């Protein structure tokens, strides 16, 4: 079951950098990067080459704020170098979230207002609990409660964009209001906030916010996450989201809430004793701020000295930490005196000078005179104790000699050394090897200390502890790297690696490479009670269309008829048919040469029995697990396992895959399915819920011939403009595939999302990313991308995220001609689209397009997108005009439909 689940999402970003850990307060130590803007770069080049004449006019700007003697010097000097570097940094902005429950004047209606006073694309992601609900699931609120502009997310949540409010007064509040009818059966409203700009989620103490409307709500009082209690906020960004969005704030400040405990405890009471309350909690968000620094260098012809002028619009006190270098090695040295005022030497390698504030305005400047014959001037800027600014990870380097200047233009801005003198606290950026060899050095010192002192015993104890801590740190580091990327993923690396694999080699991540999937059911398929028999009848037909793999619905006994709430995994009698029919249908598909994927729901499993607290977490059947098999971080199922290694799915106990016995049992079960039923591979449900490394385990144990995981989280596309760049989204999917070690592919949700935007809004330019490649997963790791345009969740009768109506064939023209492994949805094959889909599949097969086919995007404009695949097939989608280039290749039209056309090279 695919859900965009919200709730106690544990942030599991592996890329996360320790320095953003929630320990520190408002300002994080960070090193900020800037990159020279190209246009300025050109400027400076021109200056260099032309050796600007004396009394250059260009000077004026640079010196405008500094009309002192320096200018005089400048006037007589030759402008040798000038460049402006942008400085990007993030700053923490503090604000608050407030929750207000109030009665609308002169009416029975109550209104819940959630607001936030920080700028951003705020979205309220919410659901309700009804009176009598036991679990932690959210439910969809009744439609009359939904504010205009709300979008349902699956069947349990609503997303309501928060609007800029005038009513709440003051400086730009964003708020959403929910009307509450007093006699509905709603027990509580649950919500989290999402900033669509950054993808960060804002939670309450690691849990959802909960506003109780009747007071009996959830008896786990001392620990409950009821808004109004004095708690802090924790905030997490969407998995693998931008680092900058990860902040944690301390305790909440003001609380002016009602005391619910005095109220009557009858949950069913009709007249509620709702009380007004108002509660606010501080939050912090990181926003990026752009500044710049301009450096100009002049040579004084009389004294042969170099005059540097550094000017920046950074606010506040800025200290420049600088030095010079004598040769190309960029080794920091201290130049000869004199130094500007307010300069101190730092260790013996650099100088620190406070920059002078500009007269009347933000920013500051400094000017430095250094000898001739130096190779360059190095600096970094220090904004406050913890914020350093450098140039794309390196020191700023200003060439002082003409040879270094010319060298500089060929030498890319990379390279350069670590800032040498930062002490260990400041130098958070130090490379790992440095860091760890530092440790070894320290240990040696400890050894030395111990030996020189007689008080050996206590010392060595301390040494032991610190060493063990270092071991832990190192192990954690090794763990996270091993875990996250095996091997390190880069786009190029994969492209290269893919080339080495011959296309016929079968591996579970790709099958043969020529697979075409059919999703063999929809959301209603369980209704007849004999789906297996029905789809069996279609086997030959599907085979003749050209499908090589069929994905059948989840086979296990399930609480929900569709099969996604499995209970007894070994009971394969489902609403789709019984086990014998299942075997029969699998056999039939094998006969017609189609492989069969079983839909394996591994993330969660419904319990058979309640524990002593009345919580459903005890299992029966052959896998009679107890609550140790349930993750610990969903309080509503009181699991005793470890914390979840992924996101939680709230409707059922999430299985703790870190438990050996669970994995062992699941492997055994999967192997049993392979042997007993004859499944060839897996479609893995809700793999966001647990670590991909476990998936690798399962796949290694079962050696399927194809496996695909459903890693579905939301693109930031629903409100307003969808970002052209969806790299973060596809990276999350790639990261998952990586965690499985490439043993499974993943549905290319990114491509579907981008197709939505492109087709719906006629913005076909979206179909090419900044590097001219397909913008979805298929652009980065085509062999593992399983492309689709619709499934039982997004379409069918659920329609959670339906493909733009009437444009499905454009979608198929895209995925069936492109690399990746395309999936066709049942409902589309058995519709009027069938002839078109058949034609496209036969073009794909005829031209032997496979998951690693090469693609060249030849057009990506407002109303038309076109690409050439393997130099054999050309395709265009969109209403605009396109003809494949008439060069040596001759193109003949192969198929044509509404707003799309396919050509074959002849």
């Amino acid at each position, binding site marked *: 079951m695919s859900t965009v689940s919200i709730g106690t999402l544990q942030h599991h970003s592996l890329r*996360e950098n320790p320095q953003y850990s929630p320990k520190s307060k408002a300002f994080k130590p960070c090193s900020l990067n800037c990159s020279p803007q190209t246009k300025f770069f050109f400027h400076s080049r021109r200056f260099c080459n032309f050796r600007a004449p004396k009394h250059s006019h260009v000077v004026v700007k640079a010196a405008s704020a500094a009309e002192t003697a320096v200018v005089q010097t400048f006037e007589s000097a030759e402008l040798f170098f000038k460049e402006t570097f942008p400085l990007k940094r993030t700053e923490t902005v503090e604000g608050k979230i407030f929750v207000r429950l109030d009665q609308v004047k002169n009416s029975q209606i109550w209104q819940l207002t959630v607001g936030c006073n920080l700028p951003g694309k705020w979205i309220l992601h919410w659901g309700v609990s009804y009176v009598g609900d036991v679990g932690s699931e959210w439910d969809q609120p009744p439609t009359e409660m939904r504010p205009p502009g709300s979008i349902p997310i699956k069947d349990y949540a609503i997303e309501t964009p928060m609007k800029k409010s005038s009513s709440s007064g003051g400086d730009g509040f964003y708020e959403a209001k929910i009307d509450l009818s007093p006699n509905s059966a709603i027990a509580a409203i649950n919500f989290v906030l999402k900033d669509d700009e950054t993808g960060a989620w804002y939670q309450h103490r690691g849990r959802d916010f909960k506003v109780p409307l009747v007071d009996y709500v959830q008896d786990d009082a001392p620990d409950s996450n009821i808004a109004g209690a004095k708690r802090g906020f924790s905030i997490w960004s969407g998995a693998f989201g931008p680092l900058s969005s990860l902040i944690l704030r301390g305790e909440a400040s003001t609380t002016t809430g009602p005391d619910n405990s005095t109220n009557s405890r009858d949950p069913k009471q009709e007249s509620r004793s709702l009380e007004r309350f108002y509660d606010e909690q501080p939050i912090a968000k990181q926003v990026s701020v752009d500044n710049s620094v301009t450096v100009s260098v002049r040579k004084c012809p009389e004294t042969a000295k170099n005059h540097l002028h550094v000017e920046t619009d950074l606010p506040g006190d800025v200290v420049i930490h600088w030095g010079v270098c004598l040769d190309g090695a960029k080794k920091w040295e201290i130049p000869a005196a004199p130094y500007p005022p307010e300069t101190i030497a730092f260790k013996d390698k650099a100088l620190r000078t406070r920059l002078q504030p500009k007269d009347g305005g933000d920013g500051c400047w400094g000017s430095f005179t250094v000898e001739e014959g130096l190779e360059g001037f190095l600096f970094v800027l220090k904004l406050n104790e913890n914020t350093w600014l450098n140039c794309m990870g390196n020191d700023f380097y200003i060439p002082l000699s003409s040879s270094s200047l010319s060298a500089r233009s060929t030498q890319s801005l990379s390279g350069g050394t670590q800032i040498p003198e930062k002490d260990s606290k400041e130098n958070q950026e130090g490379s790992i090897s440095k860091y760890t060899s530092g440790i070894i050095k320290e*240990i040696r010192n400890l050894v*030395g200390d111990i*030996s020189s002192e007689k008080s*050996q015993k206590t010392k*060595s104890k301390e040494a032991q502890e610190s060493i063990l801590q270092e071991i832990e740190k*190192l192990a954690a580091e*090794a763990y996270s790297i*091993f875990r996250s990327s095996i091997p390190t993923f880069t786009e190029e690396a994969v492209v290269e690696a893919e080339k080495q694999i011959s296309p016929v080699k079968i591996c579970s991540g790709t099958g043969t490479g020529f697979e075409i999937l059919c999703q063999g059911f929809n959301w209603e398929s369980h209704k007849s009670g004999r789906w297996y028999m029905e789809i069996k009848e279609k086997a030959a037909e599907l085979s003749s269309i050209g499908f090589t793999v069929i994905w059948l619905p989840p086979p296990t006994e399930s609480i929900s008829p569709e099969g996604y709430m499995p209970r007894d995994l070994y009971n394969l009698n489902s609403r789709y048919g019984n086990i014998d029919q299942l075997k029969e249908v699998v056999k039939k598909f094998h006969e017609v040469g189609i492989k069969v994927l079983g839909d394996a729901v591994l993330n969660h499993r419904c319990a058979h029995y309640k524990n002593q607290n009345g919580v459903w977490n005890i299992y029966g059947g052959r896998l009679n697990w107890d609550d140790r098999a349930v993750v610990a971080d969903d309080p509503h199922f009181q699991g005793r396992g470890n914390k979840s290694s992924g996101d939680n799915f709230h409707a059922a106990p999430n299985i703790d895959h870190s438990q050996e016995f669970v994995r062992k049992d699941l492997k055994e079960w999967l192997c049993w399915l392979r042997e007993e039923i004859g499944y060839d591979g897996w479609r893995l449900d809700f793999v966001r819920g647990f670590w991909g490394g476990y998936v690798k385990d399962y796949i290694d144990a079962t050696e399927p011939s194809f496996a695909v995981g459903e890693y579905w989280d939301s693109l930031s596309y629903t409100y307003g403009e969808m970002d052209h760049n969806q790299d973060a989204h596809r990276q999350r999917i790639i990261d998952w595939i990586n965690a499985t070690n490439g043993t499974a592919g993943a549905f290319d949700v990114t491509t579907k999302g981008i197709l939505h935007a492109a087709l719906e809004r006629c913005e076909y330019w979206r179909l090419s990313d900044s590097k001219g490649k397909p913008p979805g997963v298929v652009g980065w790791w085509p062999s593992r991308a399983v492309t689709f345009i619709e499934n039982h969740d997004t379409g069918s009768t659920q329609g959670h995220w339906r493909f733009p109506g009437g444009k499905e064939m454009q979608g198929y023209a895209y995925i069936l001609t492109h690399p990746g492994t395309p999936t066709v949805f049942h409902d589309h094959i058995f519709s009027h689209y069938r002839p078109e889909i058949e034609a496209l599949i036969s073009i794909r097969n005829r031209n032997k397009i496979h998951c690693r086919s090469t693609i060249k995007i030849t057009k990506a404009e407002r109303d038309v997108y076109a690409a050439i695949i393997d130099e054999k097939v050309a395709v265009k989608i969109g209403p605009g005009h396109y003809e494949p280039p008439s060069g040596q290749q001759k193109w003949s039209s192969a198929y044509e439909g509404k707003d799309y056309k396919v050509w074959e090279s002849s």
Partner: protein
Amino acid sequence: MEVSVIGSSQVKTELAYRELGFCNLKGGKAVISSKNRVCVGRSTGWRKSGIRFTLRATAAIQSEQLRSDSVSGRSTRSKSRDNVRLFVGLPLDTISDCNAVNHARAIAAGLKALKLLGVEGVELPVWWGIVEKEAMGKYEWSGYLALAEMVQNAGLKLHVSLCFHASKQHKLSLPEWVSRIGESEPSIFFTDRAGRQYKECLSLAVDDLPVLDGKTPVQVYREFCESFKSSFSSFMGSTITGISMGLGPDGELRYPSHQRLVKSNKITGPGEFQCYDKNMLSILKHHAEATGNPLWGLGGPHDASTYNESPNSNNFFRDHGGSWESPYADFFLSWYSNQLISHGERLLSLASSTFSETAITVYGKVPLMHSWYKTRSHPSELTAGYYNTTTRDGYEAVTEMFASNSCKLMLPGMDLSDEHQPHESLSSPELLLAQIRTACRKHGVEVSGQNSSATGAPGGFEQIKKNLVGDNVVDLFSYQRMGAYFFSPEHFPSFTKFVRSLNQSELHSDDLPEEKEEAADSLRVSSDSVVCMQEA
């Protein structure tokens, strides 16, 4: 985030309660003051690491004289009976197809963690299919050299496993040119009764046949070893202390008798005899004719069970009245196991002669075919090439062969305990291990240990410990294997605990003798020189 997970209270408490002796000066002092008396009593891992450190530094920086001193120091120590040298295996894919170091950062961090933990060194699988990938005699060592340097810089030792096999599971293959030959000449691979080839290593029947573009596999292996020796000459004896010679499937001296086992099966079947490739059959035929029973040379036992069948389902392995006790079976099984021993002899003598002038020890790995050990016929061992039944000791001849080549014997499965074996498999890893060790003792072969590569056998650490202490003398233990699981919070804390428990009984610091000053000085001098080396 991960840091906080690992730094869990579990580890910390442990920290507070158990006192370690690492960084203990005693060890350092011992080395400096009397170089040949390296191991005094049972030193901790920490202390050991100090020792190694110093040794290497002095050896490298001062003179040849010192180097040989350090070597002899090492061998003295390795003979000391009360210390297990712990190695940790590096990931199988440490070096990629393209000779790059995979996850180098993780390995760098991992090496340092191991060093701090007091681990002696790491084991590195060196794959034939990577080094000699493209063409015969075209070796590409760069990746492995880079790694050896990393290991050296981390102050660890290196045990190299030369892998002349492939691993489908880990996507490691034989050299491309060998696979190509195999396509046109499939008889270079082991073959079972049904004609299925095992393509992860060459059949022992071709050892001395010129099947590889005119050269015999033994020649090719020898040249590989020579190339290894010369390429790593600067590491030999200093960083590299031992070599495991690849002897067959998974590097073990055995037939791939379990090539078709279905993994999901709880019970490991008896496996099948692998004597059906063209060359094996012809050797068998000659042998049968020579012994006057030409009819016995037509194939393996016709009544043996198949891979996953219970051994009792057919006549051959049946406990009572099974044909394994017949004269024919004795003929066949003797031949089958002797072929294996001769193969081991060929490769181990090759290795020990190649590396004889270096100061490194050669190891060979013998499998622990423990399922069905409690039956009378020991079918798993029989199919793997060990003619070991209740009535015949099949390991004597093997250990004798090791002894004659002065090789040490590596035994896997030291983490397996009887109680965790499925009852129905009639398996007994513990008894088998004891049998092999007895044979080793008898022939003076030193035993080294490994855990089974399956991650986390239940109660594994306790079992390993049991196998390493007391009367069980083990030269080194190679723990399998570094990777994500190894460093995971589920595993690493217990590994740490294990390492430290191995070195439990160190002296309290109060019990240490005086005379610290001189030692401290020399230690500092030598560690300074290490600093220079590392930073150079």
